[in-house]
């Protein structure tokens, strides 16, 4: 369950959200739509803890985001940004996934290597997991950016246009992953996610409204 209480947010010269009161369950995928520039990415950044200076309250499972400790965001939420290359810190997908698993320490826990291998094979990345990320094609990079979702986790997924730039086969894989997951998808391509039968929201005129 996520809940917004009198939630507002503005950039210095632009108001994005005004007095949003809304709550919805997080049991199956939620789709948040909105026109270009309506605030989808901003909302994702706020929920993931990257933008803390909003007004009003946001509660996740009845706990205020404002009361989260620093590590709590990373424990409970995984946020994948829209532009694939903005998600990586390392040079290859293999190294990047290792950093997701055990930070910069060199010590591997049991099973971590296997779960990486499984992830790459599921996303058809095995062949390219050792290549330099900036030499991959746009679509490959996008698929690579989704890899951390498949590591064993019980987090809420925040996905900003996760299908943008993916070909039909990759979209199919993505939809399979998303089935029945606690995910908030920010996208203006409703048709792609129809088979998930998601809870639908839309950002309209600084409000978030529920469609179904």
């Amino acid at each position, binding site marked *: 369950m996520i809940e917004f209480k009198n939630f507002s947010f503005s*950039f210095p010269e*632009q108001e994005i959200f005004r007095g949003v009161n809304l709550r919805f369950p997080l049991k199956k995928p939620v789709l948040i739509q*909105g*026109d*270009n*520039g309506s605030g*989808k*990415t901003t909302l994702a950044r706020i929920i993931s803890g990257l933008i803390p200076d909003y007004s009003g309250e946001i509660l996740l499972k009845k706990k205020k985001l404002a009361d989260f400790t620093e590590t709590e965001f990373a424990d409970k939420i995984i946020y994948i940004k*829209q*532009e694939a*290359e903005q998600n990586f810190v390392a040079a290859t997908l293999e190294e990047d996934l290792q950093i997701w698993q055990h930070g910069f320490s060199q010590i591997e826990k049991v099973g971590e290597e296997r779960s990486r291998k499984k992830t790459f094979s599921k996303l058809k990345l095995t062949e390219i997991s050792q290549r330099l990320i900036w030499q*991959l*094609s*746009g*679509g*490959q990079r*996008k*698929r690579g950016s989704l890899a951390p979702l498949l590591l064993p986790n019980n987090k809420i997924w925040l996905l900003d*246009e996760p299908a*943008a*730039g*993916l*070909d*039909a*086969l*990759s979209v199919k894989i993505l939809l399979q992953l998303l089935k029945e997951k606690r995910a908030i998808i920010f996208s*203006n*391509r409703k048709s792609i996610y129809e088979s998930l039968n998601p809870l639908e929201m839309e950002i309209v005129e600084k409000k978030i409204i529920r469609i179904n």
Partner: protein
Amino acid sequence: MLKLVDVSFAFGKNQLLHHLDLQLLPGEAVWLQGPNASGKTTLLNIIATIIPRFIHGNFSGQVFWQDTNLHELNFPQIATVLGFLRQHPQQQLFFPKVEQELAFGPENLRKPAEEILATMEEVCNQLQINSLLQVETAKLSFGQKKLVALAANLMLKAPILLLDEPAVGISTNNLHLIKQVLLKEKERGKILVIADHLPVWYDLADRILPMSELR
């Protein structure tokens, strides 16, 4: 006429194009279809001569616009032949404000200020981005950046327009606008080369080129 003659390209062991010949007439729109990493962007890079000028691999072949061999031009002269909306709009925006961004191309082509402003008004009306003109480019959303980058390329008024994934990250409303704009450009005689795997260009494209047939 845009003409590719016997173009081959391999990157490492990966043969992406194999003896490709392609001719496009003014007013023609071609849609390059194919899954991720099938070489769509590569073909656009070849038409824009980014391959072989900046990306090295095993390249052979020639690209002509009318009677001009594009490889014999200075790279900046390419801007008079074609506009190229690349995949990442971020890479194509340099200036603090949208208005400065849009003016940059024609300013380099030494168009007079009045003409530039008139073109800008037209392009902005078509794409409905007038309200963004004084906004800082860094503050735009991904979709808005893409619209602005497209507008900046339209400002060049070149006879060819290359578009790499123009629909990605664009809302349904804006996609509709983009299609209208492209249709108009096509009617005016512009050649359009669209690389996209989203099935949204059927009503615009005269020809569909599956990348699998070009290897």
